[in-house]
């Protein structure tokens, strides 16, 4: 440790990038000359939305440019510049630096680890390539050491595991161990916790933090998640379209941002406390009235004068429930298992008309399975799903056209849910076609209406998904669900693939739509911070069981189950 302290005084910067310019081979500039400095033991977070150039900047630090990109200016120096400009080094010298002096942790550990190699062997390989130590025995020692450093079991049997025998968090820690094996001076971490659950994320973040501090590694942490930044970073640089628009200490940037973009970005981040207003429409909870449907399930727009039920004064919801003889949707004893593995283990809940309920669960909790059972995509469940008191058939093909119309499901990834070879109008028109609207002109009119509802408009009719951004695609997917005027919209993690600002606008849209159409909504997510922004009630799902169910306020302030308490404790906030 003593040597590192001296080093810290001697070298002011571990890596410094100046005036980095990167453009595509066709000439469009991606990075417009950005500069930053990494200091030993400190973590700089590079924050930005997708397409802002943050990963390009991170890779440029290692002298790597993705296919189709080229460097047009700037320099990167390591450790005060003994080796000169890293970007001018020949390829073979760069290769020894990468993984040795400067290492990279990619986003998805499941993709970056070799599934056919034992984890110990993979770490050993890195050491061998970089001639770390003199003998295999020494390297093996280092493997065990580095596994301990990232907080994993370093026994022989553990090293002989394959990546698929580890959980996502453990895999990512193995990825970090590989990057850290040769004792690099700089680590570039590219969204290392994006795919992880909050509980796992908390552990990984702690590991990174400790490594940086204890071993005086400089970290470049690329992320879009501002809440994570607050936990892990010392400094923050905010990127917008290839420029760093704001750079400063974490506290300064997060709590007194000076650039309007930073402020906008921060406003878009949902917070658990619900103090911030995400988007322009009021959050559903609290101020938002429960939509009171008129007779026959059609929202009575004439008398829709705000029945300002404050969700904090709970009896309002209860009162509505008493008025209604039957809820819109009732799920009773829903269970599903694959072989001996029980994915859903007896789910019971009900959903009132015009109500929005959030289904919260981590990956593997069965939340997607549950929502797909309701939508009829999984037909092998047992138990009952009742819509307005009538039990639904299990699969969509067995349900009547009317039942299919009333429950609509929006998929998680807008990049996969729209056929890339069909126009938006064609994709959105499919439900109409299947509901028997045979006339092409009628269909187009209704599609246009739905696209207007999601604020896309007619110009999108004849475009293909490839020409749309993620947010626009998700709007188109929502339009497909809305085109038949459903009574229940099931949203399965629909914002998890999107940037925070886009997420905010989608939440905005959903809240507006709900108050406009009076439909009920089941909002499935892993992000507990959204709770106060979208739902009146909150159901927490763990291992196929609902462990907590109540009004959002109740569950968040007074969680009954240990799991909910743990979740709430691990949410990164700022």
């Amino acid at each position, binding site marked *: 440790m003593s040597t590192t302290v001296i080093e810290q005084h001697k070298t002011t910067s571990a890596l410094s990038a100046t005036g980095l310019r990167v453009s*595509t*081979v*066709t000439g*469009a500039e991606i990075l417009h000359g950005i500069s930053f400095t990494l200091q030993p033991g400190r973590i700089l977070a590079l924050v930005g*939305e*997708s*397409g*802002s150039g943050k990963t390009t900047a991170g890779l440029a630090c290692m002298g790597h440019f993705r*296919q*189709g990109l080229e460097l047009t200016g700037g320099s990167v120096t390591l450790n005060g510049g003994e080796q000169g400009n890293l970007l001018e080094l020949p390829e073979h010298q760069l290769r020894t630096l990468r993984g040795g002096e400067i290492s990279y942790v990619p986003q998805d550990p499941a993709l970056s680890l070799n599934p056919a190699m034992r984890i110990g062997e993979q770490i050993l390989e890195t050491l061998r390539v970089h001639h770390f130590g003199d003998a295999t025995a020494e390297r093996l020692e280092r493997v065990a050491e580095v596994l301990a450093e990232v907080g994993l079991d370093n026994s022989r049997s553990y090293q002989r595991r394959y990546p698929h025998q580890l959980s996502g968090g453990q895999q990512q820690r193995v990825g970090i161990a590989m990057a850290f094996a040769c004792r690099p001076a700089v680590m570039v971490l590219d969204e290392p916790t994006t795919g992880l659950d909050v509980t796992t994320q908390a552990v990984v973040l702690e590991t990174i933090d400790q490594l940086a501090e204890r071993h005086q590694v400089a970290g470049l942490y690329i992320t879009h998640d501002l809440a994570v930044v607050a936990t892990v970073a010392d400094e923050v640089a905010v990127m*917008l*379209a290839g420029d760093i628009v704001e750079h400063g200490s974490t506290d300064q940037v997060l709590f007194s941002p000076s650039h309007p*973009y930073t402020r*906008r*970005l921060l406003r*878009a981040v949902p917070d658990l406390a619900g103090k911030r207003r995400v*988007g*322009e429409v009021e959050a559903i909870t609290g101020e938002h009235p429960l939509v009171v449907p008129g007779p026959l399930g059609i929202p009575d727009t004439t008398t829709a004068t705000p029945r300002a039920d404050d969700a904090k004064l709970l009896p309002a919801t209860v009162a509505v429930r008493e008025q209604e003889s039957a809820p819109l949707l009732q799920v009773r004893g829903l269970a599903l298992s694959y072989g001996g593995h029980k994915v859903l283990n007896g789910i019971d809940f009900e959903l009132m008309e015009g109500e929005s309920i959030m289904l919260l669960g981590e990956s593997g909790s069965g939340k997607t399975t549950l929502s797909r059972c309701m*939508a*009829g*995509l999984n037909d092998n469940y047992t138990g009952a799903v009742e819509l307005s008191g009538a039990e639904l058939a299990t699969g*969509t*093909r067995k*349900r009547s*056209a009317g039942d*299919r119309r009333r429950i609509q*499901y929006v*998929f*998680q*990834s807008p990049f*996969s*849910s*729209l*056929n*890339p*070879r*069909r126009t938006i109008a064609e*994709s959105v028109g*499919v*439900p109409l076609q*299947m509901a028997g609207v045979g006339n092409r002109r009628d269909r187009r009119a209704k599609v246009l209406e739905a696209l207007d509802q999601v*604020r896309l408009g007619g110009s999108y009719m004849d475009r293909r998904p*490839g*020409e*749309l*951004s*993620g*947010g*626009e695609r998700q709007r188109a997917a929502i339009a*497909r669900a809305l085109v038949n005027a459903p009574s229940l919209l099931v949203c399965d993690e629909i914002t998890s693939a999107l*940037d925070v*600002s*886009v997420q*905010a*606008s989608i939440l*905005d849209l959903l809240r507006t739509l709900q108050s406009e159409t009076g439909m009920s909504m089941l909002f499935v997510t892993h992000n507990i911070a959204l709770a106060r922004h979208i739902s009146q009630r909150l159901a927490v799902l763990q291992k196929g069981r609902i462990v907590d169910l109540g009004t959002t306020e109740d569950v968040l302030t007074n969680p009954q189950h240990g799991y909910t308490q743990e979740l709430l404790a691990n949410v990164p906030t700022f």
Partner: protein
Amino acid sequence: MSIAEAPLETVGKVKRPPRLFARMMRQRQAQLGLALTVLVLAVALLGPLLLPWITGFTSTEFTGRPFKPVGMFGTDNLGRDVLSRFLDGGLRLIVYAALATLLGMAAGVAVGMTAAYSAGRLDGLIMRGNDVLLALPQLVFALLAITVLGPKGWVLVVVIGITHAPRIARVTRSATASVITEDYIRASEMYAVPKWKILVTEVLPNITGPLMVELGLRMTYSIGFVASLSFLGLGMQPPTADWGLMINENRIALVVQPWGVILPVLAIAVLTVGTNLLTDSLARASANLNAGNQP
């Protein structure tokens, strides 16, 4: 829509990569391949129309004694004009090859998509049946069928088409398997779109890349098969003019009067090389967005 989304909109409009065919045609070898293919196709398609006028003879007319250097390329084994027979002999070969390829594609694609989409037992059944067909060498199967059914045009087309089908089915099945996991397929299922319609409107447009490659490849093979079967005497029957048949008829006098062999061999070779170059560049273009970019 919030203002914060504005920067994203511009990112979405970054110049999109050129389409598949544009990427293909940007490659040098594709241009060469296209030129070669078009050359041979022009000879084969226009040849029969030009016939008596340009050479003075029809393809079956006797002009003199065998293997004599009469006319531009001499006479063949029965004393017919080689050039006339060459001009007349390509059309059938190409039409038969094209029909066989199309038949094979239609059957193979239908079977492959059905297998991948149905999964489970039906998939196993179809693909194992496929394996049985694959175990028979293509040419041997064709020989067998033609010996039994006689050397008729439709038999040729059907037999070659059928022997192609299992190979095409394999490619189609794997291409389909990667598409059917996408959510848009599940979305269609959710709206209870009939299964055949899902295959035709959702799956098929998304697997055209690999299918086009397969089409080109099978076309090349078909040309080879039709020519070989004619050479063996099981394809086109005399006195019909045909490139494969010409090679067989004239090979005995290769030293005395080589043109009767060289012309058809050259045409078949150039056509095969041309279509192969095209297929290759198409495969490269469908696998790589940057294909054909100058380094």
